[in-house]
């Protein structure tokens, strides 16, 4: 594990640089594609649409798709919460000492994330309707996340697994700008565009009374 830790430690700054450079390059390419606001006269509020799209519309009861698939929604939220917690945990370990209660808490969150990611992997691998829309990239992305969450979980409860965690982080950093996890950035762009257009067209208006 020491050897892995040393190797991962050496690779880590390069992986961060690779990640930053490729993310910037790829994002630059995407942004350069350009966007022009719809020219039809607005009927609703784009600002309100964006706000709604980035907040309340993501609540589980707001969408039929999440109401129909509560476990998938929960797993998605659990996985992303786990990733975020593990990232915060990693940063904290690097720049400050966590109080003694913190690592187990992060460990639990990472564990929840791992369980969720594994559940989503299983769903993808076993449900017939998922296969036609699945490619190796989907599996690789999920496995890399699982490995990272596993590293965080083990490190939270035992300091001896830092090498594994760091190696997982390196692998993740190398792959994110190239594969499906790149959606971590475009998710917000996509939701903003959604809110902008549907808000502008006056589609996202709720609970208005039906009366003269």
């Amino acid at each position, binding site marked *: 594990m020491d050897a892995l830790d040393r190797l991962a430690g050496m690779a880590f700054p390069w992986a961060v640089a690779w990640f930053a450079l490729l993310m910037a390059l790829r994002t630059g390419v*995407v*942004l350069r*594609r*350009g*966007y*022009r606001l*719809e*020219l*039809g*006269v607005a*009927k*609703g509020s784009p600002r309100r649409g964006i706000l709604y*799209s980035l907040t309340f519309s*993501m609540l589980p009861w707001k*969408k*039929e*798709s*999440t109401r*129909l*698939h509560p476990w*998938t*929604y929960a797993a*998605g939220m659990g996985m992303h919460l786990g990733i975020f917690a593990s990232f915060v945990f990693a940063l904290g370990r690097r720049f400050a000492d966590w109080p003694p209660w913190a690592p187990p808490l992060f460990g639990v969150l990472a564990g929840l994330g791992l369980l969720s990611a594994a559940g989503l992997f299983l769903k993808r691998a076993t*449900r017939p*309707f*998922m296969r*036609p*829309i*699945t*490619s*190796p*990239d*989907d599996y*690789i992305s999920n496995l890399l996340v699982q490995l990272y969450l596993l590293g965080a979980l083990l490190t939270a409860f035992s300091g001896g697994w830092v090498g594994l965690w760091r190696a997982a982080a390196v692998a993740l950093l190398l792959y994110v700008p*190239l*594969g*499906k996890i*790149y*959606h971590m950035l*475009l*998710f917000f*762009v*996509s*939701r903003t*565009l*959604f*809110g902008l*257009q*549907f808000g502008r*067209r*006056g*589609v*996202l*208006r709720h609970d*208005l009374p*039906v*009366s*003269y």
Partner: protein
Amino acid sequence: MAASQETAVATALDVIEKKLNLPLTTYLEACTHCGLCADACHLYRADPVARHMPVFKADTVRKVYQRYFTPLGRLFPWLFGTRDLTEKDLDGWVETVFQCTLCRRCSIECPVGIDNASLIATARQILTRTGKAPPTLAEHARLSCEVGSPLGLTREDFLERIRWIEDELREELEDEAFAVPLDLVGADLLFIPASIELMKYPRTVQSCLRILRAAGVRWTMSSVCYDVTNFGVFLGDPEIGKKIARRDIEEAERLRVKTLVTSECGHAYRALRWEAPDWFGKPLPFEVKNIVELADEWVRDGRLKLDPCANAQPVTYHDPCNITRNGGVIEEPRRLLAAAVRQFREMTPNRERNWCCGGGGGLHSMPEYKDVRLQSGLMKADQIKATGAAVVATACANCQLQLGELSEHYGLGVRCVSVTDLVAEALVGRGKAIGGTTAARPGEAGRID
């Protein structure tokens, strides 16, 4: 004739390259393939096979993008389950992307906010450009461009039709002086119907004309531009869309009207109201409104008086996807129906989450997909049945056509009408109500269940 293999592939790549703006690139890149869009699709709910999943349809273009436009896809295409595009692949796309109504319900339900319909429209554009679009759809577009109507209705046919409608209205309104104003320069409104209404639902055209007359506004129709539909939308091809829309726009400019009024034709409204300004790269020099929006305004400002007693049977409303989800005309028909009918019953879900009837996206013009189209109306049929309504009103002629067929296919036993039909029935005063004599006062409008 289909292009050769090389030309077809080059055309496909060219279409994608030219359309790659920020939104399209985002929708191509940000999909997580979670599959949650599947259950949002009426086609998939009625027949849960892979080709009906919105993400599967969108993946046609996405896989080409990954193969030819992303660094990792260029090096390791297998990673994204993609490969070199062939003409055979394009042939395989036809059924996948044209068996879709472009209703965008999946966009509303996507956790990421991916607009699958814009990707599916891109696939349709590729197939159109490579000569692989369903022949009937392509023929309707050709007729629209060359004759001025997707049904091949000539100017003479139109004039004959409108004179007949005029005669009917004179009798009905007991107004010998009534005449449809044609080519009136300087009118406030230019009303353009859809060919399908002129041919199949002349009653709806009469209803629109009665509403325009009752409102006491200066309106006109055009003798050279008498069809508002736009098959460019169905083919996903903005160039065809522009060609067809240009005729409407130039006529509205020639007649110097303030507002172009579309009839109850969902995609036509969407095309002119929302897409055309982007196609031409500038806002239109006049307003575009749907007749339902205007009627709602006129009821609100007291120009039109309605008597709900004229429509005593329970009525439900089907939200046309292009009017509601893609057009933002949501509360207007509801307010109108609340004033024009005795009992209004909402379907569930409704508004931007309504189920598509299955007739949109040009599907009604592709006879080879009739079985799929009727099957895909299952969710809508169940919704209608649950309301117990005797009448289904809608604001789109295409939906009306499909709802009528669904009623027959699923034994619903409902009457399918347009919103303007019910409004015209309920008109009092200059509109001459058939059923009632008094106007509804605010607060007295039709009951909402």
